[in-house]
């Protein structure tokens, strides 16, 4: 990965405060009384098993869901208020990339700048190519999302976020569905951006390697509640069986569940 000569992210960054956040879908409670304080410039990782409510929490921070009760504040702005998006540059890297399939890689990156008239075409080209170079994608700018591999899509999604010069970076499962080499590359990219941009980053993942590599602090979510918050070292040293089982899962082939599966297979 090449490194930029100057930071592509400029301006103020924001902290995030989540206060008594509860979310219900019908009768199902997905998030229950979540309280978080994320400091400006911090890289905060939200971990937890599948279905624990990580992505729903992230959608609330990004203002894509309305809380049932409680609130999320980005700096002093209410994340649920659509007007907040015109005050804060928030970049969300979606789990599946969420690239615009009808647009080329170049146009995907240029869209934000064009729609907000932030530069003329020459300026847009410079910023887009700079972001693509950071992510080693400069040769793929003409391609369409359908022509890209899963790892390339994630990198384009990160480049698209980078072009926005965000004041808050949010990643949703950035290494999911990737092979170990590509996961390591994405982890390295996020780590480098963290070093170079000093922008608040919130990463939702169940990838322990990524979490321990990039996090200043980690929140561990189970069944819509925060089970623990702490520094990566506190998690690796934890004696809590829930956390140790998640971080170091042991596959016991003598477990009755496996025996049952074996019998079913026969």
């Amino acid at each position, binding site marked *: 990965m090449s490194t930029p000569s100057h930071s592509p992210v400029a301006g103020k960054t924001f902290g995030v405060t989540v206060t008594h956040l509860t979310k219900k879908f019908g009768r199902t409670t997905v998030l229950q009384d979540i309280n978080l304080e994320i400091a400006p410039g911090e890289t905060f990782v939200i971990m937890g098993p599948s279905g624990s409510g990580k992505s729903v929490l992230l*959608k609330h921070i*990004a*203002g*894509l869901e309305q809380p049932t009760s409680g609130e999320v504040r980005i700096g002093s702005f209410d994340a649920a208020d659509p007007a907040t*998006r*015109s005050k804060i540059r*928030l*970049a*969300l890297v*979606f789990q*599946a990339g*969420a*690239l*615009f*399939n009808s647009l080329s890689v170049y146009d995907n990156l240029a*869209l*934000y700048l064009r*729609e*907000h008239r932030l530069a003329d075409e020459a300026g847009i080209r410079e910023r887009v190519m700079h972001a693509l170079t950071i992510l080693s994608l400069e040769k793929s700018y003409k391609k369409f999302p359908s022509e890209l591999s899963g790892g390339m899509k994630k990198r384009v999604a990160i480049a698209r976020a980078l072009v*926005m010069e965000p004041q808050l970076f949010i990643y949703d499962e950035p290494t999911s569905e990737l092979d170990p080499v590509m996961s390591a590359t994405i982890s390295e990219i996020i780590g480098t951006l963290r070093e170079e941009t000093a922008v608040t980053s919130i990463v939702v993942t169940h990838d322990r390697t990524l979490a321990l590599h990039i996090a200043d602090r980690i929140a561990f979510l189970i069944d819509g509640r925060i089970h623990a918050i702490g520094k990566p070292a506190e998690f690796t040293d934890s004696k809590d069986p829930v956390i140790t089982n998640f971080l170091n899962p042991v596959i016991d082939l003598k477990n009755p569940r496996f025996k049952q599966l074996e019998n079913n297979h026969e």
Partner: protein
Amino acid sequence: MMNQLTAVIGHIGSVVLLLLRTLSFAPTLRRQFPRFIEQCYLIGYNSLPIVTILTFFIGSVLALQSGYSMENFGAKQFIGSLVGLSVTRELGPVMVAILIAGRVGSAITAELASMKVYQEVDALITMNIPPERMLVLPRLAAILVMMPVLTLIGIICGWYGGALICQYTHFISIDSETYFAALKRYMDWKDITDGLLKAEVFGFVIVLVCCHIGLNTRGGPREIGASVTKAVVTSLILILVLDYFVTKALI
């Protein structure tokens, strides 16, 4: 029953909100000009062949049926006016609208539903690019321009379809001059403008409803199909219901 009624009222309110939000971006239409042109091409140019074929045969069948019936009481000379008025005031706008619902409405819903399911719409929102401005406004503007054009072409094709059948069917045998003379005698410009106005209303409602259903799709790929079905069925019902009210208002 009460729940269903509440749901219907909720949907209507939601469509009206979408319309108001879209209209609030109307001053930015100039910036959406390339997308507007693209939508005009997709809605108008791509629908043209099927509109001409469909309306031509509607005019033909109408002439054939009315010629067969009217021959019995010696009123064949009025076939031109019957076909002209029917195609202009009713069948042209309605059939073009049904075609647009099936062809354009389904495509719009599928595209927007797919964008919603695969989080492209969420990506736009986080980029502070309102989906109403980028996705709905160009489509609404394009249908407002293309619907009268398509309907007018459809009406003319219907007239000529009728004329052709009248001339070359042995039990009718009315030449084109007689056919068009009857057509002109009992028609005026208001019939054409009423027909185009009807089509305009249908097209606008179809695109608005299809955009709304597409943008409100939740779930996975299966829901995209369900949304398309819902959008086409809703559009067809609305076309026929609105047809009554608009016709009544125009008479």
